[in-house]
């Protein structure tokens, strides 16, 4: 087994707001191998973005990493100096954000913004950076790359801007690409193109991807491993085949049932009743208790651990502890 590129151990990121402490990420652990693609799925507010920003070291006040480790090639990023962290960011670990429309600075040209990374991390001259930037723009399928290089972001469509973001993120050949819902804001047709592009470009360099998404269709198509998050915790963690074949957590099942499938035409899509509880509001028992159809008395009192069912399948649910006992 290859050594993990990224290993997260019991990560805790809390926000200290006026209304008290919000444990947005509460003991998350997972690991990612070189070249592996992992997906983090879960509804809005489950802590996916906070997890990725914690890895990048971009959690700002009032948020703080309260505990745990983020090991990248064996080094703990949570205790790394700001200076070393900056050398890593944009170079070894790059990130693409959800909002292509607002993620580029409106006052600088596309070229300026791509070159900036290249010049910074690869110590390239202005001309070298320009050549590399245009090459990257061509790679991400932008027509008339030279022209786009010197234009301002507002002239580009959302899809084009996301391509620019990808070009920027991949310009320094990162070892890890974190993509936080990179296609949510785009048209369906463009979504597929962008994801395909990401996949192709990262395959070239064996880049690992951490893909945050709502879309289980995307998960099925392009990832190796899946983490299901709920209310700041990992509730199920397994490879993509097992997830679709044998989902164990009632929440995962709910998510799968609420995704349309061609071969099982149903009259109506299922949905999970209710919404993710605000972090910190459920202090006792399982975080999913309020929405779980199979909750028992125990679920309201004691919180389940993330339990290993097999070597590549973990789940946080009392049902499966009992199952094992029963067997």
């Amino acid at each position, binding site marked *: 087994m290859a050594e993990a590129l990224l290993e997260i151990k019991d990560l805790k990121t809390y926000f200290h707001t006026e209304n008290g402490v919000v444990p947005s990420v509460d003991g998350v652990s997972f690991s990612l191998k070189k070249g592996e693609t992992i997906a983090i799925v879960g509804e809005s507010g489950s802590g996916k973005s906070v997890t990725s920003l914690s890895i990048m070291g971009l959690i700002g006040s009032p948020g703080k990493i309260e505990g745990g480790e983020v090991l990248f090639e064996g080094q703990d990023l949570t205790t790394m100096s700001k200076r070393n962290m900056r050398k890593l960011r944009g170079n070894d670990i*790059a990130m693409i954000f959800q909002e292509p429309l607002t993620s580029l600075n409106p006052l600088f040209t596309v070229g300026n913004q791509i070159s900036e990374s290249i010049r910074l991390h690869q110590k390239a001259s202005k001309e070298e950076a320009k050549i590399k930037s245009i090459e990257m723009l061509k790679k991400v399928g932008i027509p008339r790359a030279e022209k786009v290089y010197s234009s301002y972001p507002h002239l580009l469509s959302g899809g084009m801007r996301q391509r620019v973001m990808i070009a920027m993120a991949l310009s320094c050949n990162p070892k890890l690409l974190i993509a936080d819902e990179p296609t949510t804001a785009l048209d369906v047709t463009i979504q597929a193109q962008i994801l395909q592009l990401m996949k192709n470009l990262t395959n070239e360099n064996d880049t690992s991807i951490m893909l945050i998404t709502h879309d289980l269709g995307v998960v099925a198509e392009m990832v190796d491993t899946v983490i299901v998050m709920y209310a700041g915790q990992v509730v199920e963690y397994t490879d993509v085949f097992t997830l679709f074949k044998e989902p164990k957590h009632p929440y995962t099942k709910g998510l799968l049932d609420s995704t349309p499938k061609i071969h099982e035409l149903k009259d109506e899509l299922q949905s999970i009743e209710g919404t993710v509880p605000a972090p910190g509001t459920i202090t006792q028992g399982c975080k999913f208790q309020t929405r779980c159809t199979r909750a028992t008395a125990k679920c309201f009192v004691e919180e389940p651990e993330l339990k290993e069912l097999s070597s590549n399948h973990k789940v946080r649910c009392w049902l499966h502890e009992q199952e094992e006992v029963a067997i």
Partner: protein
Amino acid sequence: MGKFLIRRLLQIIPVLFIISFVVFCLVFVAGDPVALMLPEDASPEDIEQLRESLGLNEPFHIQYFTYMLGLFQLDFGESFRYGQSALPIVLERLPATLELAAASMIVAIVIAIPLGIWSATKKNSPLDLLATGGSVLWKAMPNFWLGIMLILLFSVTLGWFPVSGRGNFSHLVLPALTLGTGIAAEMTRLIRSSMLEILNQDYIRTAKSKGIRDFYVVNKHAFRNALIPVVTITALQTSTVVGGTLITETVFSWPGLGQLLIQAVNTRDMAIVQASVFIIAFFVILMNLLADIIYKLLDPRIKY
């Protein structure tokens, strides 16, 4: 850009037209300078004669027509006090005022930009609270009071700078500080709040995610964006600055336009009043135009 400039310059004409009308009306309503021009024991006949000769007995529209006729030749009439054409007198004072205004602007910029940026990046730190509190306090302080305090401290007690008048650089220091710190107080607040908003934008997060040093994130990516509203609002406040100039010039006996205008108002020297207000208005408009140009240079999203 060229087309935009021409359009904006053409827009100045109707604005000046309106201003000249308003100035005329104010002077018309403000009333009769004749009483002040003649000795107290002048006979009613003398008064009547002077009024007649000045055209003050004509109806409103005739007087306005005469006034506009003069205006087109840049003739604001003769000053009662100086006995010569008003405009040259006003223009002679202009360099002093421009000097003071420029020096104050430099003082304001030198204080406000670093302080505003720094207080935004260190939000809620003791230093930010000091800067924010200080600027509120400074804004509340009237120009004349600040000016007098500075004179008392630095001229009377310490003797570092002259009390009043215009001459070498040392004369400029206190008036420029009085006016400049006042502008800086408001500008600091603006820059701070604008920076705070910009620092929360997605593209700032993007910049940070690239590993760029905080210094460049703040000063390259954020500051330029933050400057856009600051330029606009500062331009809109030119009129407040003009008010400050009038007071500062009076306090420091700075021989500028403001001092001239206030004297002219006190002596009802209407030709001077009209000419100075017109020139001041012209500069306010010019400042706004300049702000528009800067704005467009800063923001590529704006089309000309």
